[in-house]
């Protein structure tokens, strides 16, 4: 049944977490953030992703808690729908189809059953804020057509719109304008900052806005780093504002605390500033947050803040300005030079991360595992400063060794080059610098590869450079009288007619090394380093080079810049076949003979999967994306899939990931994107503990002690309580959201039945007075108690098997009757 579905290109995570402001749940336990087509729910305490709300078919552009039910979340998307979610259970409740492309979503408690969205009109650059009335209906998908216009010419970013206290007004900024629309008066006030080209006001542009939660006060951020606090803005003439100035660069976002007593601001300085009482002299800082603050949000409970950063990270900050949790996604801040590399040990995707760092990104859990600081120098964010760039990275010897190359080029002639070799330390579970080689080559290093031979006692590294040489580095003994050590030294330098070396790769068994020198491919014996043969097709410089695997290991593939793909037979030293294909990325699958090649054409990128032995491709997918594909990689699967369809068999053992120019990480899948949650995170959600309120500390402790006592007592009597977790009926009842459950009358019999002790395990007399059970009942259905008991009787008479009735001893019946007599009227008062 899986095979019936066609293969699709899907976003596989790594999408921006910082696209919009994150939203806290009412109790600050969860934090929601948009992530591509999904909404992710993270736990603020554990940083774990507990849910992925999927259902939108395009980028999610806005999320907001339902002001009328704080257990529900609204989201809007480019696909033109607003969806209402139950975030605790991760269930889509309703879909409202609006029809326009929605750019942002706002709600507030005083707008009865309507939400506000930003849509754009026919002309591409004009955005409107409109209110959408959400019709009340029981059906799952509802057309929301009642759209009323609120503000025109707004900025598409939701940071530029804010709702005032009690929803009395909405304020929007764009360029040099601040517009305030009063809902009651239906009047718009407009304030203009001097926008003259004179130097003084040149950077007066508004960048963001926030409204005071209690007072008539609007805070606006500006490009020149100023924050203006506007008051009296209901009067076009008497309006006044005051300035707060600390940021030296653009203010990226602003947020008021829940009480409005302090204002938070952030920008390029990566410092969160808290302005207390909105005074210039009274401010607190949280510095060194790592990257530009893109968004700031405040939890409704007021105990937490969070900042979204440009390096795809969310930091949860406590009220006393202490960072408490970091949710880090795939860093997309810098250019990817290293390409996509798989760490053989963790199967993590390794690529450029923060400046000068290598990030290890888990594809399974869609989060960053850790950062490896390669450059090990302070990063100074300054415009025009030429930084050290990490250009190459390669793993060797099953992840025991990591080679990295960094370079910095200020002028044409001044190249600073450094190669570092890192060894995996089992004790610290991390990479430790082993050898540092400065200027390994005279010119840029174009390729780097480890000899992937089984004999790991003799690791080999080959670097190819534009200076016309390729160098072979081997691990040698570097011990001295102080310690035993190993280090890397150059073993062999090869060149071919002073051509630039552009690519290098080892054959699968490690016996052959192929190095391409511009148009020529040379094959070297890895034992003796002598030139075995050369291939030259005169079809342009070699762009990609790789050996075939397994049964196809006698083939060498080369893709040239002129759009020719060649396949040479190493046994006959002749061209086996060639094809005209403008290949950008060519990646062999380590677990099969397959080679994936992505070609670039004017309309988009196409994927070809083929075996070197067969000139006919196994699989072709045209137009996998519109942009240029920059990097690709095969990631071995933990559990092999079994696609029976021949076309998809290449995905059985590995998955192909690729990265486009706009740095979206894509993959192929036939299924809808699978739930990537680990079982532990689910567990976390299920075992949702009681809120740690002061009452919990007083009563919870007390009760725990009581429970312990009780347990002891019970243990003494060798009585075993029925564990509710183990009974499937109960767990089903408890862990299924209330609104999708069948009616209580239907469930009741099953539920009661499950609570009854079976004859085999427990004696009939030992029906425990299960407090839990009562609680569950109360929480599940707060019907009138009479009803409930009647139904119990009903079910007793009809549904349940006779034997159970028989099993009820007199004492049990007495017990049950006792329950019936218990006064449950207080429930209605709840």
């Amino acid at each position, binding site marked *: 049944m899986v095979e019936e579905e066609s293969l699709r290109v899907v976003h596989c995570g790594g999408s921006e977490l910082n696209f919009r402001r994150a939203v806290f749940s009412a109790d600050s336990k969860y934090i929601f953030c948009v992530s591509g087509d999904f909404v992710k729910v993270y736990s603020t305490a554990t940083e774990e992703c507990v849910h992925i709300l999927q259902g939108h078919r395009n980028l999610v552009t806005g999320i907001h808690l339902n002001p009328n039910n704080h257990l529900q979340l609204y989201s809007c998307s480019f696909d033109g729908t607003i969806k209402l979610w139950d975030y605790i259970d991760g269930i889509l409740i309703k879909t409202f189809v609006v029809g326009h492309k929605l750019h942002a979503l706002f709600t507030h408690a005083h707008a009865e059953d309507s939400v506000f969205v930003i849509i754009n009109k026919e002309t591409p650059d004009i955005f409107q804020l409109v209110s959408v009335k959400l019709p009340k209906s029981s059906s799952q998908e509802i057309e929301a057509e009642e759209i009323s216009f609120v503000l025109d010419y707004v900025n598409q970013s939701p940071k530029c719109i804010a709702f005032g206290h009690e929803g009395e007004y909405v304020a929007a900024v764009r360029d040099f304008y601040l517009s305030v629309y009063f809902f009651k008066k239906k009047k718009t006030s407009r304030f203009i900052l001097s926008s003259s080209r004179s130097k003084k006001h040149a950077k007066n542009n508004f960048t963001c806005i926030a409204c005071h939660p209690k007072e*008539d006060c609007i805070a606006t951020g500006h490009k020149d780093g100023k924050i203006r606090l506007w*008051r009296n803005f209901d009067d076009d*003439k008497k309006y*006044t504002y005051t300035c707060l100035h600390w940021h030296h660069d653009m203010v990226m976002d602003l947020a008021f605390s829940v009480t409005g007593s302090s204002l938070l601001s952030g920008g390029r300085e990566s410092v969160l500033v808290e302005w207390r009482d909105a*005074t210039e002299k009274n401010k607190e800082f949280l510095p060194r947050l790592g990257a530009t603050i893109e968004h700031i949000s405040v939890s409704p409970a007021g105990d937490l803040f969070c900042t979204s950063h440009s390096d795809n990270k969310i930091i949860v900050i406590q009220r006393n300005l202490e960072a408490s949790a970091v949710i880090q996604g795939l860093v997309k801040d810098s250019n990817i030079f290293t390409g996509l590399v798989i760490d053989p040990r963790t199967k993590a995707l390794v690529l450029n991360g923060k400046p000068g760092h290598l990030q290890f990104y888990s594809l399974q859990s869609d989060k960053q595992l850790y950062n490896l600081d390669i450059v090990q120098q302070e990063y100074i964010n300054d415009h025009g400063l030429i930084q050290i760039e990490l250009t190459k990275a390669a793993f060797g010897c099953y992840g025991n060794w990591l080679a990295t190359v960094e370079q910095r080029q200020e002028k044409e002639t001044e190249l600073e080059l450094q190669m570092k070799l890192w060894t995996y330390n089992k004790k610290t579970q991390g990479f430790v610098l082993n050898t540092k080689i400065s200027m390994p080559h005279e010119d840029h290093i174009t390729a780097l590869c480890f000899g992937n031979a089984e004999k790991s006692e003799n690791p080999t590294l080959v670097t190819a450079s534009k200076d016309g040489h390729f160098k072979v580095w081997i691990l040698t003994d570097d011990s001295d009288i102080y310690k035993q050590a190993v280090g890397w030294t150059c073993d062999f330098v090869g060149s071919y007619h002073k051509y630039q070396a552009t690519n290098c790769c080892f054959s699968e068994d490690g016996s052959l090394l192929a190095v391409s020198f511009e148009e020529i491919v040379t094959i070297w014996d890895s034992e003796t380093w002598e030139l075995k043969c050369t291939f030259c097709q005169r079809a342009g410089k070699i762009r990609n080079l790789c050996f075939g695997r397994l049964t196809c290991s006698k083939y060498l593939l080369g893709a040239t810049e002129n759009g020719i793909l060649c396949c040479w037979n190493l046994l006959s030293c002749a061209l086996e076949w060639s094809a005209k294909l403008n290949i950008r990325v060519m990646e062999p699958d380590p677990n099969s003979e397959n080679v994936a090649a992505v070609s670039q054409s004017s309309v988009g990128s196409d994927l070809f999967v083929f075996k070197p032995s067969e000139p006919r491709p196994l699989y072709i997918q045209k137009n996998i994306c519109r942009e240029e594909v920059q990097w690709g990689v095969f990631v071995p699967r933990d559990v092999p899939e079994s696609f029976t369809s021949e076309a998809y068999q290449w995905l059985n053992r590995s998955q192909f990931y690729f990265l486009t120019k706009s740095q979206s990480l894509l993959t192929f899948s036939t299924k809808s994107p699978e739930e990537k949650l680990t079982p532990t995170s689910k567990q976390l959600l299920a075992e949702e503990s009681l809120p740690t309120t002061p009452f919990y500390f007083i009563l919870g402790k007390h009760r725990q002690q009581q429970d312990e006592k009780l347990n002891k007592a019970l243990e003494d009597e060798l009585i075993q309580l029925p564990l509710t977790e183990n009974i499937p009926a109960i767990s089903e009842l408890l862990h299924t959201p209330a609104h999708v459950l069948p009616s209580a009358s239907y469930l009741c019999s099953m539920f009661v039945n499950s609570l009854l002790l079976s004859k085999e395990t427990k004696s009939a007399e030992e029906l425990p007075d299960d407090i839990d059970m009562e609680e569950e009942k109360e929480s599940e259905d707060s019907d009138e108690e009479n009803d409930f008991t009647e139904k119990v009787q009903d079910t007793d008479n009809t549904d349940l098997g006779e034997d159970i009735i028989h099993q009820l001893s007199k004492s049990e019946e007495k017990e049950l009757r006792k329950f019936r007599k218990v006064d449950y009227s207080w429930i209605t008062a709840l």
Partner: protein
Amino acid sequence: MAAAERGAARPTGDNRTSRRRRRRCREHSLRTSGLAPRALPGQSARARGSGAERGPRRSAGIRCVAYNNQSNRLAVSRTDGTVEIYNLSANYFQEKFFPGHESRATEALCWAKGQRLFSAGLNGEIIEYDLQALNIKYAMDAFGGPIWSMAASPSGSQLLIGCEDGSVKLFQIIPDKIQFERNFDRQKSRILSLSWHPSGTHIAAGSIDYISVFDVKSGSAIHKMLVDRQYMNVSKRKCIIWGVAFLSDGTVISVDSAGKVQFWDSATGTLVKNHLIANADVQSIAVSDQEDSFVVGTAEGTIFHFQLVSVTSSSSEKQWVRTKPFQHHTHDVRTVAHSPTALISGGTDTHLVIRPLMEKVEVKNYDAALRKITFPHRRLISCSKKRQLLLFQFSHHLDLWRLGSTVATGKHGDTLPLSKDADHLLHLKTKGPENIICSCISPCGSWIAYSTASRFFLYRLNYEHDSISLQRVSKMPAFLRSALQILFSEDSTKLFVASNQGSLHVIRLLEGSFKHLHTFQPQSGTVESMCLLAVSPDGNWLAASGTSAGVHVYNVKRLKLHCTVPAYNFPVTALAIAPNTNNLVIAHSDQQIFEYSIPDKQYTEWSRTVQKQGFHHLWLQRDTPITHISFHPKRPMYILVHDAYMFCIIDKSLPLPNDKTLLYNPLPPTNESDVIRRRTAHAFKISKIYKPLLFMDLLDERTLVAVERPLDDIIAQLPPPIKKKKFGT
């Protein structure tokens, strides 16, 4: 005089600066000649140098300002005791001034009983000024040591002063006098600030480290509110309450040396709110009459505006919010005032800044523009054309300079080398502590006259080659005690003195002696003093003008009043009589210029045309008054006027500009045809290359002399401002 100090040219001691200045002079004459090529062919323009006194000199910063709501006038006192009155309705013209006195450092200034102006100072005296006769009515010792603060009661009938010895004294204002009433409870240390409750029942007094609230009836302190000395967790020596303001709801606002603005509840004596606004002292506070906004000035040169805004539009709850900061000063803002439409501030850097509140201004005209008044609206330099001498007037001395000259020629825009440097001929110091009010050098260069508040001096100068000798003309008549304006006739035979009694004296000068010819008595019923004089070059006519009434023209030959030019709403800022035609040209503070024919006793045709058509709107928007008018002897159609920032030649033969034409046209490009040039030409040829231009006149028909006073030099003489860390330095 303070004004003089600020106003005149600068030292020659520094060679480099004086050279630069000379070069500026050069340029000006040449560029001006380019502006009006027919009038001033540039080929043989002579370089002129003018210099000034050497040695250090203190500048007179503004110490206090007091705004009078009824007359819309602003009184400004400077650190040397000068008091100036600005008329805010008349385009912020400085219409009156009282000369300073060395021992009278003013610390407080207030208006009471409507139009009565009082000041108090560190010499312990309370002074009342006579605004009509422009002199001091009386000075009265308060017997409390130096006076630091003064406040008039809301009704205006009582005056309260705070003294060095900690006493607060209440005076009753009676007609023509003030009368001591009683003392309040004496405090430990000096009373630096005082404020009345608008009902007049309580007062707040700011002292060192605490604020006292007094009950006026009993005179006893009912609350003592201690101010936190801590500043940024560092205990400063003492916390000085520089200013207090008592609001009608019982709130007391205090500003102090720790940079705080604090709100106190006077009923309970508790601190309500604290705004830390500066790292340095907050030195002054002024509240608007509606009590919906106030302004504070800090030692960092910033003024902050606080406004009472409603918390939400629906509720009536209001709170004070710091709104806009304004940084128009480089030094301490010693004083602020709050007029209904503007924030007014003055400080050590000698600027008076009037910042209109946009929300209070009805129409966005030039009233809404920021005003920065730096220079006095008077002429402090006089010139002897014949001998090419310039006389600079300072507060306590006069400087006489002979201009340098050059023989070189050059083209337009060149700076010519000086063949002869400017000479400092004379440095004349005054006797006594009083400041000079006015001074004049005769056109022939052989007489110098100046006056202080109590004495009149006339000197005769004798030139013998390079040396110069000075001889005081003694035995001045008793009526020549003090003069507001002095003028010599063109042939230097007559001296005209406008005295502060409103009378005009005509004196004939002989070799080494003089003879009183006549005194024109003021019109019956007016006591207004004449401040401006102009004499016709043929010596027949004398025009004199007071601050508000019309211009009187006297016939000097017959010694009688010839006519009176009809009064105009705005005060006269400059007067001159044209040669040959005897047309009187009058400039008013609203930038209107009238031409009045004295022989015909009516406005000239040109003046009527101008009035009919109206001036260019940009011309009317100029905010500095015209301080000097002169004429070109060979070109009767030209009127030369200047103010501190521009020099203008009005060519009466050309059509007037209308609102569509460019007023400040740059020099038309030479490659354009004459037709276009003629079409775009209009009567006003304006040059704004001078920054602060103090004086400009024609020496002869080919030479202009200009005196500039670069602002940087004034700033350089001031004490250094508070150093502030600036980002990126």
